[in-house]
């Protein structure tokens, strides 16, 4: 069923749409990676962080986390504007 009507080479426009779908799939992975970064930060309290490294302040953490949040929302906005409505039905979700 999958090889039913997927041509080998696509027009420029369909090609672009497919790459946008790829981007839409990858976006949450990007979000996961970016939000995993805080785990690497030096911890406050009695953790094993080297003494000379100060723990990251909550204000910086807020700026980082919310910054990522805004970037993700903007990227999703961009993708939802660029993705063709018809592409959803054409795509078998299987490429």
């Amino acid at each position: 069923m999958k090889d039913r009507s997927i041509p080998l080479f696509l027009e420029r426009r369909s090609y672009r749409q497919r790459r946008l779908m790829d981007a839409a799939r990858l976006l949450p992975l990007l979000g996961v990676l970016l939000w995993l970064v805080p785990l690497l930060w030096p911890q406050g309290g009695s953790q094993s962080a080297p003494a000379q490294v100060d723990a990251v302040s909550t204000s910086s953490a807020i700026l980082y986390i919310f910054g990522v949040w805004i970037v993700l929302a903007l990227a999703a906005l961009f993708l939802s504007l660029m993705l063709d409505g018809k592409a959803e039905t054409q795509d078998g979700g299987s490429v």
Partner: protein
Amino acid sequence: MATLNILIAVCLAYVALLFGVAFMAERAALKGRGNWLRSPWIYTLSLSIYCTAWTFYGAVGYAARSGLEFVTIYLGPTLVMVGWWWALRKMVRIGRTQRITSVADLISSRYGKSGLLAVCVTLLAVIGITPYISLQLQSVTLSFSSFAVSDPEGASLIAGYDTALWVAVGLAMFTILFGTRNLDANERHHGVVMAIAVEAVVKLFALIAVGIFVVWGLAGGIGPMLERIDASDIGQWQMDGGRWVGLTFLSAAAFLTLPRMFQVLVVENEDERHLRTAAWAFPTYLMLMSLFVVPIAVIGLELMPAGSNPDQFVLTVPLSQGQEGLAMLSFLGGFSSATSMVIVAAIALSTMVSNHIVMPIFLRLTQGGASGPSDVRHVVILARRLSIGVVLGLGYLYYKISGGGSALAAIGLVSFAGLAQLLPAMMGGIFWRGATRNGAFAGLVIGFAIWAWCLLLPGFGGGMLSASVMAEGPWGLGWLRPHALFGIEGVDPLLHAVMWSLLLNVTVFIIVSLVSFPSPLERLQGAQFVNIFDHSDNPQSWSGGIAQSEDLMIMAQRILGPEEVQAFFQTEAARQGLAGYLPEPTPDFLARLERELSGAVGGATAHAMVAQIMGAATVSVEDLLAVADETAQMMEYSSQLEAKSNELTRTARQLRAANDKLTQLSVQKDAFLSQISHELRTPMTSIRAFSEILRDAEGLEPKDLTRYASIIHAEAIRLTRLLDDLLDLSVLENGQVNLNIRDGLLSEVISHAIAATGTDMHVLRVRRSGPASEIMLTTDHDRLAQVFINLIANAQKYCDADRPELTIDVSRRGGRVIVDFIDNGSGIPPQAQSMVFEKFYRVADRQAGGAGLGLAICREIMARLGGTLGYLPGQGGAAFRVSLPAAQRMAAR
């Protein structure tokens, strides 16, 4: 006292407003003017029921206790929404094409419409959600008492009333009124969704208002605010990595599996494209909701006396600053959060309870009873209303028994962890065709059991399990301790429960799925779910009741023609006691319509078409098989047609060939007739002429008389001979000739022929060569002699040499006897060589006695004798070759 009164008044006014909004939306939708109801913004706002009172009050408390960890609850849903292309898109498409009514329906449909699974999921959802509902009741009650604290008289007043009870009753009424207005769960609840959207705006607005007041009113701007955050108790990044990841995952899972989220995400979805807007708008909403949580918590920690409940900071901070209006708004925000969640959760749970528990039991009890379909509809509504009451009653009961847990967030997370047990069955179901009902069931049971043992029971009402069980395990089995399964201690209890329950859930689900074998229906559903994008387009909005009838009418008109359909629908509507053209889509009406349609398009197709409009639930494997059967019949029929058409083509070709032959024969016959009449006419003319002379002329000389009579006689003989020849030819051609087969020497036949022609050596000298005397023939000697005579006579007649000579040469070649007749004349011109055997052909106009039939007759005779007669060119004169099979001679020996 005044404050509390105003609060109650505002609260009632707000509720009235919500009723009004819901009512208006319902009416607009009913009149078909509800286009603005179907905007993606309403959809996005309705998703905000994810942000319950737990968010509104609890998040600040959570932040005050654990810093930024609270944000994980919103990161998970953000990732799910941003990654809508993966799961949500598929879920929404499945929900719309398969007419899924709830999360239990989704899972049971996927696994072969299993009733057992549906009951299982429903029970799990009720058990998991009940604490959550009680949490909402508690938060409203708490917020009331927060106001009451500042008002000593009000405190006593509040104590006299059971706020939670009143809230529960009010919510039950609202939900019953707008949530069970429509008969079908397929239909959307426009009123409810609209009210939720309004509440979503109110709570966002309230939280942001408090946040702005805190940041700019109390802290003095962003910069000072950030400094105060860093200076506070939660000023340093302090995070348990396991909890950070685990809670993000848990919230993402819960976002997909919570019944109320499924209700707004999938069931109430008007259009798949709304998901695109929600993909970025909802993360933005979540971001805004959590933006001011930390500032409020920090300022609350600074301003409020030690020991005050951080869960109420949103309310108590403005109150302590004398901002009554802001506090009122904040209260409304919290109230909105609580009510919207409870309403949708109650609708979702009541749909599940009535569809998967009450209705199956009812149908079993009234099995084959006289109750008509209208009774069933009645029962569905009643069941749903009762379920709403029961769900809210359970929530209230849990609130009363638990006595109000201290930390709101803890209850929420327990609930999340319970519902997350649905995730493997759900995701496995839509992405993996190999997932089976047994696997899903086993995984669910294991996961649910571990969750209940490790998380629900220890936390239930301050601990249902005794301290000894907690410390030493049941019956002294240490590896079964609720917070240290398999002896692994020291893990955060929540993470511990989530990890073990989901790990074993997934493992058991996969292993049992791999081992077990699905039923046909299960496999069919599995293929449909997993390959949903191959099978469906974006279906148009679900519509129910009259709208469904309208769809049916449109479809039927296409098939049966407008007039008939309108008449039919009008009759049906009249039968139901309705005016107009649109009857209710009752089973009776559908059956009749299906019958009408099946007359035009076949039974199985009609059923599938009606089912497509009315919902896929009515399509069974039998129907599909019937469709396949019909198709097979059609194919067989068409192949028969094809064969028949081939046969016809063949026959036509044969007919055409026969026709050509007949035409040719007719032409030949005409030619023959004209030829023969010409041949007959020539002698006839002279006979007539001379007989007229004999009759009319007087005094003829006897010499002339004799001459004329001889001419007439000669011509008559010629005619007779011609007729004899014709007769002979006709007999030969028709194959009616009787052959007189006997043995004899070839030389005898030749001698007989030479003698019969009466030739002498002066006229034609005949030379014979070859071993004719040795060759014995078994054939019709008279006929063969006739051929030879004809050939010798021809040589006599036509040989134009001065001393005509005919050589008769006999030879044997291969299995044949060859007799050549070669004269020394000028021969036959090449263009005439192929014509000499045709009837009535004569080489020249030279005087000759024959009618031109001789050679034709000879050729026919030779054909009868199994031999051939042909012209032999290049022999110096006219040469004819007679070839006879020698096999006849051989056979004679």
